[in-house]
């Protein structure tokens, strides 16, 4: 979609040759990280929230505590760490998919090889364009993991509580991911101009 929209706009201003760079920059800077963050909020956030909430209402978390095991260390810390580690890796996968789809869309309108597309796209890019936006998603992972674990482990009230925990995990983590993105983009622009 980005490719199609950008193509139309850039053609109007006589800058069609900048299309690969526009796609590459928008994907690695913003689209890849934020879409990954929101998808993981929806899928993993809801999963963690619902799983821990279900464990809470069936007293499984109390049983862990009664067995003298710290449930926060066992259940929350591991999930938060997994989110922090996996978000940058998933972002890389999302970036690759975004770039390939951008090339396919471009190819359907005007045949160009993937090699040419990548070369043109990355011609003005350096590591500062790539690393900070990718690693900012570790913060998204922290937010998603923290919110989902918190919502899950403080659940009350049976099946309805499990549903509420899953919903609030998704809504709150998506919201905070977007807010964090605004702050992180500002910081990245400040420290990696």
């Amino acid at each position: 979609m980005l490719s199609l929209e950008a193509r139309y706009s850039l053609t109007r201003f006589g800058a069609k040759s900048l299309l690969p760079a526009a796609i590459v920059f928008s994907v690695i800077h913003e689209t890849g990280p934020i879409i990954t963050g929101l998808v993981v909020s929806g899928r993993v956030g809801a999963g963690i929230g619902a799983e821990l909430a279900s464990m809470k209402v069936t007293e499984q978390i109390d049983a862990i505590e009664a067995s003298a095991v710290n449930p926060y260390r066992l259940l929350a810390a591991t999930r938060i760490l997994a989110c922090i580690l996996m978000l940058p890796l998933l972002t890389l996968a999302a970036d690759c998919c975004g770039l390939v789809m951008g090339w396919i869309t471009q190819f359907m309108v005007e045949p160009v090889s993937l090699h040419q597309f990548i070369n043109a796209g990355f011609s003005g890019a350096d590591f500062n364009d790539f690393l900070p936006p990718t690693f900012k998603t570790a913060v998204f992972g922290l937010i998603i993991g923290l919110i989902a674990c918190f919502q899950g482990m403080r659940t009350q009230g049976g099946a309805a509580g499990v549903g509420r925990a899953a919903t609030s995990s998704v809504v709150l983590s998506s919201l905070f991911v977007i807010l964090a993105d605004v702050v992180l983009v500002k910081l990245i622009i400040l420290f990696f101009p």
Partner: protein
Amino acid sequence: MDTIEQIATDPAEAEQGGAPVIAVEDLHKSFGSQHVLDGISLAVKRGETLAVLGRSGTGKSVLLRLIIGLETPDSGSVRIHGQAIAGLALDQLGEIRKKMGFLFQHAALYDSLTVEQNVAFPLQHHKKNMPKSEKADRVRQLLAEVGMEDALAKMPSDISGGMQKRVGLARALALEPDILLLDEPTAGLDPISAAEIDDLVLKLQQEHHMASIVVTHDLHSAKTIANRLALLNRGKVVIEGDFEELQKSDIEFVKEFLKHS
């Protein structure tokens, strides 16, 4: 009834002399405007089983949760082996919890783990130096004790409620506790399964010589497995003693409870 003052400085020495292993003194607990426990005092010695009876919603389960530290009392104290558990750090509380086995009302088995992994859970976390083969043998032995040795690989969802309670009991005994807390061990079971659980608790009690508190509203079960009974009403202990003492009581609530049990 034993009081806190009776506990000597050395808990082990004191318990040999008959001091309580579990001592609850003037315990109060409220949830919002609802006063669930209103000054409960109880004591249980080693080798003794106390059944806590009462109507639904009188705070019997809350009492057990306070004893193991899953809830915090508004006031009053809980002492385990003479050590007050209020204000303890999580690690210190953990050391006390290792000496306690807890059977939850609905067994609370970990639904993503097999029966074998459920029973092995406390061993995996607290017996890290124990060889794997020894852990496996211990799990088999515990499951054999509760008659569930054939269900090793089954998931909790694949076994009945009575079987889940048996597995929960095996898990509660994994660390060889000297205190056993049972929350409605026979609730929701058919009479035959309930009698089997009662016999099992009695057998384990005789073999392991633990201090136990059994929360139940099943008078028959309480008579079978407990040395003493405590009847709760509106957050207070109405009467405490053996079954004969309850039968002889002139208290209206006690008569009514026995009549309908």
